């Protein structure tokens, strides 16, 4: 400012300065401004490049998780294997384990080999059957137990191809690497190409990735996010049901009713401090209080939800107080002036006007909670969970996984096929986060009022 005033004072310098030709001082100021703009643009470019790099690497690695290779074959449900005494007794049929179903798939390959143009020298049907995911016999057994009357018939069944065959069509496996890999052979890849030619093997969109449960390291092709999505959803329900009433009540009291004294000052400072506490601390607290002291079950969404509630509360209180503060005092004064009680003024006038801001803050708080991993590691949510939790409210107490934890889990697996799955899970998580933030923006745009 001093530069500006001094250079504008007339008569201080000789009258030779022109309005059109810049003097040295103006040039310097303009140059400083241009430099600052360049810094700003550079900062934005760096940020955007980092974002593009991150998103494109995730998309590059992860988009293949949404496509999966399937092999469709006719399977003869041999009664000699599945129902030895022909009684059709479901309990006896259930005695046949998944190991007993694997030979049926090998048989199906034998039938396939009789077709023209299919078959590779040195590849037996038993070896070819390894191209089917280990999930295949389990699927088949589930089908037979659900439809025992189909035994003795030939059914068309869509199997997952094994992770390596799937990797072949995603560029992860080649004939060279297959030679070194004990899990797949170059002959199997040749056969896969023949089957693709014949239309038996197809790569299609993989709904299973969104709905299936996690799978063990032996069958990455079957692993899905179903349990994790459900677990995250349950946790968000708990967080929403707890943080919204508690957070809003606390903020309204602090903002509108509480006397201004040292106690409320301490409370305010501590709320701000809590917002900055590392999230892992809440995990330790949750383990000590909810699991060890209160005896709630491990790996349960209710515990995860409670821990995330503690973590999100300060964020929501701060956002709510800010939006309550933004309502002009004239609204309160007018309400009080026509005889409303303090509570009526708050609930009839201030709160509805602050609602869009509160909702926005809540959704952003939820989005933060959705992506949180650290506290969940301590309360047993990193587990391998294959059973879907039941419907609420019992489901809150069943073991479940969570989306960010599933990502963490998959990055530690040995099979290379889990890399694409981890990236795919990140994409799903990002989509959820983007959707939540978009809802927050829409709410703000539609309902926010400015004064």
């Amino acid at each position, binding site marked *: 400012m001093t530069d500006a005033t001094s250079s504008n004072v007339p008569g201080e310098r000789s009258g030779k300065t022109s309005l059109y030709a810049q003097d040295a001082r103006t040039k310097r100021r303009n140059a400083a401004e241009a430099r600052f703009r360049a810094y700003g643009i550079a900062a934005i470019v760096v940020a955007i490049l980092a974002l593009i790099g991150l998103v494109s690497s995730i998309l590059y690695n992860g988009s293949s998780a949404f496509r999966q290779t399937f092999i469709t074959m006719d399977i003869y449900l041999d009664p000699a294997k599945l129902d030895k005494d022909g009684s059709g007794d479901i309990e006896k049929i259930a005695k046949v*384990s*998944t*190991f007993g179903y694997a030979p049926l798939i090998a048989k199906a390959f034998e039938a396939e080999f009789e077709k023209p143009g299919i078959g590779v020298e040195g590849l037996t049907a038993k070896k070819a059957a390894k191209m089917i995911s*280990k999930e295949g016999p*389990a699927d088949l*057994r*589930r089908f037979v137990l659900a439809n025992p009357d189909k035994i003795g018939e030939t059914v068309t069944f869509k199997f997952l191809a094994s992770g390596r065959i799937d990797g072949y069509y995603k560029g992860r*496996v080649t004939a060279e*690497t*297959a030679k*070194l*890999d*004990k*899990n797949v052979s170059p002959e199997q890849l040749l056969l896969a190409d023949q089957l693709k030619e014949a239309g038996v093997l197809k790569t299609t969109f993989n709904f299973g990735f969104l709905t299936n449960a996690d*799978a*063990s*390291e*032996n*069958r990455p092709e079957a692993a899905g996010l179903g349990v994790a999505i459900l677990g995250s959803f349950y946790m968000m329900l*708990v967080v929403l*049901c*707890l943080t*919204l*009433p508690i957070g809003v009540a606390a903020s309204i009291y602090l903002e509108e009713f509480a006397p201004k004294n040292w106690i409320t000052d301490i409370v305010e400072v501590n709320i701000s401090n809590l917002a900055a506490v590392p999230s892992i601390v809440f995990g330790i607290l949750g383990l000590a209080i909810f*699991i*060890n002291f209160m*005896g*709630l*079950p*491990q*790996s349960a969404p*209710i515990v995860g939800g409670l821990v995330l509630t503690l973590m999100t509360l300060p964020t929501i209180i701060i956002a709510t107080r800010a939006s309550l503060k933004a309502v002009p005092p004239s609204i309160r004064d007018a309400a009080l002036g026509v005889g409303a009680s303090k509570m009526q003024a708050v*609930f009839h006038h201030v709160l509805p006007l602050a609602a869009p801001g509160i909702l926005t803050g809540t959704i952003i708080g939820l989005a933060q909670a959705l992506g949180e991993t650290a506290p969940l590691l301590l309360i*047993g949510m*990193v*587990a*391998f*969970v*294959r*059973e879907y939790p039941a419907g609420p*409210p*019992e489901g*809150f*107490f069943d*073991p479940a996984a969570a989306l960010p934890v599933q990502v963490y889990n998959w*990055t*530690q*697996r*040995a*099979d*290379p096929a889990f890399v694409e799955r981890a990236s795919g899970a990140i994409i799903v998580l990002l989509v959820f986060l983007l959707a939540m933030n978009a809802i927050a923006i829409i709410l703000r745009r539609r309902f926010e009022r400015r004064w």
Partner: protein
Amino acid sequence: MSFVKLTASALAIAAVSATTASARDQVQIAGSSTVLPYATIVAEAFGENFDFPTPVVEGGGSGAGRKKMCEGVGENTIDIANSSSRIKQSDIDLCGSNGVSEIMEVRFGYDGIVFASDINGPSFAFTPADWFNALAKEVVVDGKLVANPNKSWADTNGSLPAQDILAFIPGTKHGTREVFDKKVLEAGCKATGAYDIFLAAAEGETDKKKKKAAKKACHALRTDGVSVDIDGDYTETLARLAANSNAIGVFGLSFYQNNTDKLVVATMDGVTPSTETVASGEYPVSRPLFFYVKKAHLGVIPGLQEYIDFFVSDDMAGPDGPLAEYGLVSDPELAKTQEMVAAGVAMGPLN
């Protein structure tokens, strides 16, 4: 305000169901991340073939799993601890003080530890002495202890390639590191004669304490950045190798077998690691894998007995089972273990 009523009733329902939360109906397991893949494979097959729900399996490390099991008896404590090393007396004491008096020890197989490098690099033939000479803080030169002067693998052993020494070894919190210390460094220490010098210089009142001090000196690694501790898991080691193709990494046998297209494995004492050579005992760097069962939970948690029977059955842990296919070295004495598990024999005191 109907919303307030709605949330209040939701909270009430949650509170009521919290108190009536029914008995746990699935087995809960935690522990070693080395055992984790095997346990998940068994749990998955168990859930498919039995009427019980699939057990919940958590990682977290051998020590953490045993501690969790020893927290006490009851539904909100775990039933089984997976462990890649044998239980310690301190764990048994902790268990005892928390009322977990009877534990079943089940050894279900062996795991090999392999040394591998990038597939495009040269292959190595190591002996434990090479590793000791490459990584130890002090090595023997002309009968005297000196600070480790070796720069390339050729310095440690003329027959190895002249490649700079760089090793990614598991961090100290890993069970794998214990085996590495014992079966590689200590063996190399003794082979090069450094152990005897350490023992002669060791201070301590008894022979036992002296030996302990000498062993500790054998485990001391050089700190000039040549050996890098990896505190993460094998995927991290693999990523570091990909970025640094001159390095040698330490992996579990099963991890290597799933990544044979990226890694070339080194021999140890002339033996190539494989499930066969580990099972026969020819390959020297291996360790048994265990899980520990809380006996008080047998018959209380549905499916627990069936799960452990299924785990050690020939269908799963046998030489042709899915665990062996994944990289487990099947226990030659599996039949004995099966008998023990079926009879529910608790483990005796550690010897």
